[in-house]
């Protein structure tokens, strides 16, 4: 079936590759002698260079934020809802850039790419990236694309954390900052869920100490379980009740029925896990969850979030989603309050939704209207 490329779609898009020969040093001190970033762009950079917007992806996202890769694509990029002609992030007006983060598995240098030193996949040897490392590597990409500064840096969840880090680390580069369903750092509960996910992967016999690619194996059971746990934390209890209830997909509640019962919610989680386990690299999942754990916006400012955000020069939009329990509204409120205390311009909304943490990716009239209204101030008038 051909994809619908009409209203509001950026249409067919082709990922680009930027190759960097200059060494990249991670916060840990580890060095990549050269590396590649895969990215997509939508819209046109204007002569003044003041209409560029960076989209930062979340844990399982990629550079493919909008549009379709082929006529047969089953689904568009992960944030097609928000990016396109006439959409909140309007590609008629703005030049939108989204790159696959360093250490991820969709084409940028990462555990599933070849380590030039060994001619083998990096596997578990790929350095641990942190949010601030991604920000520095995205800045290199911006320079590569002749972008002088960002009219806006935008992201949800882990992407929102990158947007905030951008505003703090490179204040002169970020005119507007949108952080959706984000947090200034992870809680013990957040880290615990990440550890369960990692433990699932590391317990898979096919994990091979992270060396599974070289050994021709894939720890799909571990990754599937990690994804099932993760996915659960993206949904709200009410949202799940509405969607799945106690419906059976297989078997029945009849007294005489001793067949295998499969609830709809089980089937859904199994499907999500299975699909993800063949598409997403296990080492990347471990690195990404660790990057989340290590993120702490205030760490370099004596744990003072107000001091950290005082450095920023951006206008901020902070939004949370009412039923999000992964990064609940209270975490966005911490960011909002620190911004207000730092005297920064900030708009805050708590979107009323049953969609949980995934709320930032899903349709919601208020959310979309707010994003559209706020984005009008981004870029040249």
């Amino acid at each position, binding site marked *: 079936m051909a994809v619908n490329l009409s209203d509001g779609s950026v249409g067919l898009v082709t990922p680009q590759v930027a190759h960097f020969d200059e060494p990249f040093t991670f916060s840990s001190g580890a060095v990549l002698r050269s590396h590649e970033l895969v990215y997509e762009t939508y819209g046109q950079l204007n002569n003044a260079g003041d209409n560029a917007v960076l989209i930062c992806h979340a844990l399982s996202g990629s550079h493919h934020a909008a549009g379709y890769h082929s006529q047969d694509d089953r689904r568009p990029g992960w944030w097609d809802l928000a990016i396109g002609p006439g959409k909140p992030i309007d590609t008629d007006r703005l030049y939108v850039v989204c790159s696959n983060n360093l250490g991820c598995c969709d084409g940028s240098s990462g555990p599933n790419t070849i380590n030039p030193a060994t001619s083998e996949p990096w596997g578990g040897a790929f350095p641990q990236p942190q949010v601030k490392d991604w920000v520095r590597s995205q800045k290199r990409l911006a320079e590569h694309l002749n972008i002088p500064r960002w009219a806006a840096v935008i992201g949800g969840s882990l992407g929102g954390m990158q947007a905030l880090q951008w505003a703090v680390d490179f204040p002169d580069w970020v005119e507007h900052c949108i952080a959706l369903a984000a947090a200034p750092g992870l809680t013990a509960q957040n880290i615990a869920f990440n550890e369960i996910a990692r433990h699932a992967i590391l317990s898979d016999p096919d994990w091979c100490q992270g060396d599974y690619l070289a050994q021709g194996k894939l720890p799909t059971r571990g990754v599937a379980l990690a994804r099932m746990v993760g996915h659960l934390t993206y949904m709200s209890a009410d949202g799940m009740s509405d969607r799945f209830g106690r419906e059976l997909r297989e078997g029945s509640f009849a007294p005489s029925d001793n067949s295998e019962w499969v609830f709809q919610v089980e089937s859904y989680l199994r499907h999500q896990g299975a699909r993800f386990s063949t598409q997403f690299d296990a080492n990347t999942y471990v690195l990404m969850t660790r990057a989340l754990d290590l993120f702490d916006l205030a760490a370099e400012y004596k744990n003072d979030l107000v001091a950290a955000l005082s450095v920023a020069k951006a*206008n901020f939009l902070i939004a949370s989603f009412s039923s999000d329990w992964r990064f609940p509204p209270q975490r966005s*409120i911490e960011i*909002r*309050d620190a911004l*207000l*205390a730092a*005297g920064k*311009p*900030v*708009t*805050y*909304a*708590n*979107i*009323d939704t049953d969609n949980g943490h995934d709320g930032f990716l899903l349709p919601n009239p*208020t959310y979309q*209207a*707010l994003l559209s*209204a*706020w984005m*009008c*101030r981004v870029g040249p008038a």
Partner: protein
Amino acid sequence: MSRLDLDTVLSWVPEGSRVLDLGCGDGAFLARLSEERGAVGVGVDIDPANLVTAVSRGLDVIQEDINDGLHCVIANRFDVVILAHALQELTHPHIALQRMVDIADEAIVSFPNFGHWSCRLHLGVKGRMPMSRVMPRHWYDTPNIHFCTVTDFDALCSALHIDIIDRATIAGPAQHFLGRWFPNLFATSAIYRIRRSGG
């Protein structure tokens, strides 16, 4: 709130002030403050539709329930804080007032005057809770849970050690002077400019 009320509030906001507008609605007044007084404003409102409209005016707005205590707002970040015709809707008006004079140099508060003769007539003669153009809702179905009179407000300010810098009253055209002389009886609404005592 009438145009007359808002004109009064506007005249009390110094040029270029940092203004916090509590219950800013769709931001129309905040936008006017920014245009006519060069004010840098932040609005607070709980309604999502209001929020979107205010944002589309280019304003910064915080979605928050004023009843939650305004913890988001740090002391002395604002020159003026405005609470226009929302005092009577608050769960704890006295706490909000105290907080307002803490977070800004000056606070401007307006409210409908429940001491107006028509309210008294309603209550005194009919024995029913007043309903009017300004107060169109039944007692059991109204956001207005804390009506007060001009005299009540004066007493609360005194009890909270709040200084009244200025007061304007709005009355019907025929009762303009009566409203000024006997505000508690003839003012339909009142606007106060207040600050913390000794501030």
